[in-house]
């Protein structure tokens, strides 16, 4: 399931690329009125409180996350088994509304510690005053290898490459960046009771940009047989 998380990163790349286009921003006033400031402050503290509350709830017992968050876990599908994820994703910013429909993420297990991955999506961008742009996304291919296959301290590496899908017009429409992007994130996990903590850290290299580092902390816990919840904090720096 964590493969889903990678999709989000992937989409975010698209989003950032899109948002790098020049956009005219109409400002009504130089400084926000008090009410807007108040709303912003309340929103900020609401999210902070939500994050803190979730952390407190989960910290007692954390489990490897399966919900669709970005931080990968060390898990792989069983030998010869498929994990297929289809999804609608949505990203809203002050400049655009980006979505995918669908995102297709196909994973296949080889042996007890190898996972093959391929991901592709249909992209759509809606920006004020601009024509709606649609195209097939870049492709992402990857191999996850659980280097240390221990129950309580597994370690895996998940190199991935993002490249232009043959026939895609996404780059012509500035929906994706030129060049190839590669990433080499490492993952580890710690099980505590029913729950777990996942950590991820690794570099991202782009053909036309400085290297970046991604890091993630995810806390996950099952509730009963059918429900699993997770929260994560994700950072990306150059």
């Amino acid at each position, binding site marked *: 399931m964590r493969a889903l998380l990678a999709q989000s990163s992937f989409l975010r790349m698209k989003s950032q690329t899109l948002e790098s286009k020049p956009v005219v921003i109409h400002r009504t006033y130089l400084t926000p009125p008090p009410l807007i400031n108040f709303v912003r402050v309340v929103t900020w503290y609401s999210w902070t409180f939500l994050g803190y509350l979730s952390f407190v709830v989960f910290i007692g017992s954390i489990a490897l996350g399966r919900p669709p968050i970005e931080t990968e876990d060390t898990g792989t599908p069983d030998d010869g*088994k498929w*994990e297929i*994820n289809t999804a*609608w994703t*949505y990203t809203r*910013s002050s400049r655009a509304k980006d979505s995918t429909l669908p995102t297709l993420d196909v994973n296949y297990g080889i042996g007890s510690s190898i996972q093959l991955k391929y991901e592709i999506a249909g992209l759509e961008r809606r920006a004020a005053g601009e024509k709606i742009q649609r195209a097939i996304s870049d492709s992402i291919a990857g191999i996850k290898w659980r280097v240390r296959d221990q129950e309580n301290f597994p370690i895996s590496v998940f190199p991935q490459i993002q490249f232009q899908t043959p026939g895609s017009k996404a780059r012509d429409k500035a929906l994706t960046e030129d060049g190839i992007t590669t990433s080499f994130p490492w993952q580890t996990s710690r099980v505590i009771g029913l729950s777990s903590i996942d950590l991820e850290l690794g570099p991202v290299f782009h053909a036309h940009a400085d290297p970046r580092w991604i890091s993630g902390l995810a806390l996950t816990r099952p509730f009963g047989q059918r429900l699993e919840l997770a929260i*994560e904090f994700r*950072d990306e720096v150059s």
Partner: protein
Amino acid sequence: MLSVNAGAHIKLMPDAGLLVSIGREIYNHDSVRATLTAYLGWQILR
């Protein structure tokens, strides 16, 4: 860029489940901050 996301996996069938997540970027110095990210998906295990 720092973001926070929360998600859920709801197992509806032995080999399939619903995936949901929501989140936002707390700050982003390199690009426009995403004020909302959402994910709604379906997972099949075979």
